[in-house]
């Protein structure tokens, strides 16, 4: 498959996939119970999308096309792990999938805004978030490391999250005005 495809095709695909990857990841996370599962689904999605890339109409919306694949791969994954307790019912999954697709541009602007809001935090706040969200750690472990109770740590993180979200909202409003 990969041997025979012309190089321009790889480039087109890579360009499209890379530019939509963050949106797709967010989309998949709304459907999946945790981030580790998102990685697995994203891998499958990228492979299936590459395999089916011939069927993609270059004039159409790549995000919509790839999201359809991601959604299908997510469901496959969830069914495989049907003993996972924390999986939404199909009707909710449908709602979430549909709505996040509609909203995907807004979400992208929000991510950009969040990125610049994150930069504005002070070093201590950045460090806390960095500890809390680094790969493979659990909240209560990080709390212990930071010398706080899990409750207090949660609260701090929650406050930071809330302020980031409202900062992003303000920025987006300004940009839109």
């Amino acid at each position: 498959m990969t041997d025979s495809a012309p190089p321009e095709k790889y480039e087109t695909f890579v360009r499209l996939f890379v530019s939509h990857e963050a949106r797709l990841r967010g989309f998949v996370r709304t459907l999946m119970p945790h981030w580790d599962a998102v990685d697995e689904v994203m891998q499958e999605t990228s492979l299936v999308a590459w395999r089916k890339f011939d069927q993609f109409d270059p004039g159409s919306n790549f995000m919509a096309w790839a999201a359809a694949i991601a959604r299908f791969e997510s469901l496959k994954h969830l069914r495989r792990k049907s003993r996972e307790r924390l999986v939404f019912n199909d009707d909710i999954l449908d709602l979430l999938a549909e709505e996040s697709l509609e909203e995907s541009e807004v979400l992208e602007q929000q991510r950009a805004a969040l990125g610049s809001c994150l930069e504005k935090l002070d070093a201590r706040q950045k460090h806390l978030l960095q500890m809390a969200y680094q790969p493979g750690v659990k909240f209560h472990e990080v709390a212990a490391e930071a010398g706080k109770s899990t409750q207090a740590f949660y609260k701090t993180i929650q406050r930071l999250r809330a302020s980031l979200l409202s900062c992003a909202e303000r920025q987006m409003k300004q940009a839109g005005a």
Partner: protein
Amino acid sequence: MKKSPESLLHDWLHGEISAEDFERLQEMLRGCSELRKRLRHEVNLDLVLRDHACLDASLRSWIPDSAQDNKILMPVRFLQRPRVAWAAAAALAAMLAAGLFIRFQTNPVVAARQEEMNQGSAILTRVMNATWQNGGSQPRSGDTLGTGLFQLAGGLAQIEFFSGATLLVDGPAELEILSPWEARCHSGKIRLRVPPPARGFKIHTPEMQIEDLGTEFAVEVDPEESSTEVHVFEGEVHAQPTDSDLVVLHDGEGLRRCPAGLKAINTVRPEDFICLERMDAMTQSRAKSRFSAWKEWKKQYCEDDRVLASYTFQRSCNWERAAGNDASTTVSFCTGGIVGARWTQGRWPEKDALEFKRPGDRVRIRLSGVYEGLTFACWIKVDGLDRKYNALLLTDGYEPGEPHWQILEDGRVMFSVAYAIAPDRQEVADKVYYTPVIFNHSNLGRWHHLAVTYDAVKGETTHYFDGKQVSRETLPDQQRRHVIYGSCEIGNWGLPAEGHEFPVRNLNGCIDEFVIYKLPLQGTEMVTLYQAGKQD
């Protein structure tokens, strides 16, 4: 008390929601588009936070520990340019063109890594019984040293400057590295060997500046007497005492500067200063005694009937292709078959190890029986994490009860076991147990003890690194499961089912010992395993 929709949402995001709360959240989501929107925004924020943390962690993990947590020894700086998305895209395109499997990264970490520039001045190549001052900086052999203070409380250290000069420090001593071409000795005894390319290397002391013209010489600084002595054993040295004229010194000449004035030293004392040859001999004898102690200790654990298989990877000839199994209950089929992997030096000069480098390198083994748990313990030197998954030990397939142990590209270790989702059903699921990031820039290329224990009855997995527990996880509702093996491989993923997308999982590194137990060992035993086998 009932939780608010927000806190339910947060519990869900952190994967810490109870089944009951989850049902409630689901009901709320069904009826409220505003809450669904909130969920999407919170997920979006999570995505951003994780991306940032992941990028930070990846960059941080490529800076040596010593640079991160001490201020005395100045950190080796890595210059990092801004994230360049096109570079990542180009790298991906190259991967595709090469016909390799596709994998997309959230962050162009790979691109950022390629931009690293090492700003060190020297390498600490060897230490012997070294202790460090104030419990501050604890550099290990192999560390890159930047500019800054190097405070040895006792023992010996060998520093090789990037200019080519080799400096031996005999503790207690305080040295300040100024550049690849210059160092300041505040106190203690040092000896330098300066080959022609490093000619012009300078040593400063409180009383003197010494410029080397390609030689071997030694310096002793005694702050209490405010004195500096320089002894030249070979070649030529220019010594410039403070407020005095330049003195040119040749073989066998020396100079002492103290408050009383300048004095020529007629008989230099090479035996007073540690030399490379003596340091070599000491290192060798130390390695010999560690190796014999380990061999002695190994005898008793070979008799441990909890051991299912023990591969010590010691060859009888260069073309040895069998990996002997030293377990007491050895049966011939437990002998491993070495494919591709080459013999190399292990933890000590007399100990062998297998080097896994190429995609085909592996050791094939076959283990039979059904067990209630396991322990994998190995001595490993990881040289790089080239693959998405880097194999330690994997069964060929992934049937219920079969374990997979591997290192992820980001430096976390992952252990997983497959299980049948229900006794009467064919479908297989798996449970993965991760550690935090263990392998990073500062411990690549070094020997480490890595272990995992799994209790199939309790569903409990514990990971260990150098004898210390790094993570433990117990499944609350695990039903009694079991462990089986069949054909497996060390250092690669054998013969995966056809069409699998990620078959290339070869390890880039060396394994010097691999032991498999029939049950989970206790934490205290892990400490013993580590202590008995550690390099020095």
